[in-house]
């Protein structure tokens, strides 16, 4: 039998992720999300195909997810990021029952049962409790976002910062700096604030172990530690926490193909052409 390949395209608010899989991940690419999602999805997919040494015709099924999923003209199917995250985490870390995903502009909690999402909570209405909170406050401090987590661990005397509003927190940061608070102490306070906010939301789900942390937030060691302190136990972080949604999308594509084969159905697929769409819908 001819080998099958599955692609998952996850267009987040900040990053676009593509994986190509058969039994394992053959190639993955992470690029920033531009204002024109379709165009970029196109380029990131091409890059992933080159890495996997595959032609687009060889991809059996393409699933798009993330908030920009409708802007992927070459996808065969769109599936919500909740389902894709659930599938991806269940595959990578089967012992996980609760997923906390901290993205650039949203955060969510997902309850898993038998590898599927059974409940979720989400915040995409308020920047506090999302990656944006740290992005805005890092800029106010003149610290690179990538350094925030590491610096927070150097704190000796954590400063209390408001967790309810990013704008007010940014103002507080300036005030604390002028009062002479240490940079690391302020940054630790910011991580505490975002952890309070995320924990407060996810707690509504009745958190069960094990807990996985995914999304860009999982790459921030300060946030991992702050959330662990709130939870009272360690969290699991997948090797590449940005890719769980894309992996889940590819795996759900595989599930769809296997199911169709079993029933002897023919799947409808989009044309295998990586051109950008000229009309936005």
């Amino acid at each position, binding site marked *: 039998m001819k080998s099958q390949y599955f692609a998952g395209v996850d267009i987040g608010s900040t990053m676009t992720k593509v994986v190509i899989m058969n039994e394992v991940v053959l190639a993955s690419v992470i690029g920033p999300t531009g204002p024109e999602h379709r165009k970029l999805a196109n380029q990131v997919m091409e890059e992933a195909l080159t890495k996997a040494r595959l032609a687009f015709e060889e991809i059996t099924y393409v699933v798009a997810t993330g908030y920009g999923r409708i802007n992927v003209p070459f996808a065969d199917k769109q599936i919500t990021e909740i389902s894709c995250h659930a599938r991806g985490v269940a595959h990578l870390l089967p012992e996980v029952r609760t997923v906390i995903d901290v993205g650039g502009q949203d955060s969510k909690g997902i309850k898993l049962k038998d590898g599927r999402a059974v409940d979720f909570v989400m915040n995409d*209405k*308020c920047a506090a409790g999302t990656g944006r909170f740290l992005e805005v406050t890092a800029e106010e401090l003149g610290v690179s976002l990538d350094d925030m987590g590491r610096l927070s661990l150097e704190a000796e005397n954590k400063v209390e910062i408001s967790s309810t509003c*990013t704008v*007010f927190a940014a103002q507080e940061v300036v005030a604390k700096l002028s009062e002479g608070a240490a940079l690391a102490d302020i940054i630790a306070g910011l991580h505490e604030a975002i952890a309070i906010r995320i924990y407060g939301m996810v707690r509504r789900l009745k958190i069960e172990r094990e807990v996985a942390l995914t999304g860009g937030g999982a790459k921030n060691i300060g946030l991992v530690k702050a959330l662990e302190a709130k939870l009272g136990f360690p969290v699991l972080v997948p090797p590449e926490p940005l890719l769980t949604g894309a992996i889940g999308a590819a795996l759900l594509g595989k599930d769809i193909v296997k199911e169709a084969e079993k029933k002897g159905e023919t799947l409808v697929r989009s044309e295998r052409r990586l051109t950008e769409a000229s009309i936005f819908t």
Partner: protein
Amino acid sequence: MVYVAGIDIGSAFSKAVILAKNRIIAYQVVPSGGNYKLTAKQVTGKTLAKAKLSLEDIAYTIATGYGAANVSFSSETASDISCLAGGVHYLFPDARTAIDIGGQFTRVLKLDERGKATAFLLSEKCAAGSGRFLQVIARVLQVALEDIGELSLKSKNRVDFNTGCAVFAESEAVSRVAEGAAKEDILAGLHRTLAAKIQTMVARLGVEPDCAVVGGGAKDVGLVKSIEAGLDCQLLVPEEPQIVAALGAALLAEEKVSKGG
């Protein structure tokens, strides 16, 4: 002549009012900046100069607002709610509802016929309900804060926002500008979003006419019109909406002096 002063140190602006015999002698408004102690001295000094008085001429001083504790020369401090209520009642004796749109918070008050606050709500948790929201977007659009009201009235095709969050609205405004939306249309959308937040607060308290709007936000004619449309009632706007709490503080000071003989 007995002179009294009211000083309101707000998060964005500081105001001072000097009263004599229940009449405003002089007032000043200055940006608060980062050093409230210094600002308190400056705004009072400027107001005294305008009235051609010195601090020794002032019989009683009441401080209020976010930074009231920084007014070292005040006789006492008073709550911003009671000062606002007193100031609104002085200007509009028939007002039973007052909306104060400040730099950091929005407050909604219910007043009785004597000018006492009987209930109030505060938008303290989120910048989206306050003047801060206007500042953030004015900066993105590169329009002076004092010009956004008039400009928004020229809107013919309002661009509505998908978010109530000031941070997300900032990025949304950037995207809309990039797509070529007109500044006035974006501003009209922004006013609608902020007005909706304020209306929700007013509705929770129950609007009772007459309704007055004060604070820096009341100087934004686009915002005032948007709230009027939402509440379906005319709003009373003072000539100088920013000094209402300082005026209320001065009125309280006058009361103290007259009671004390």
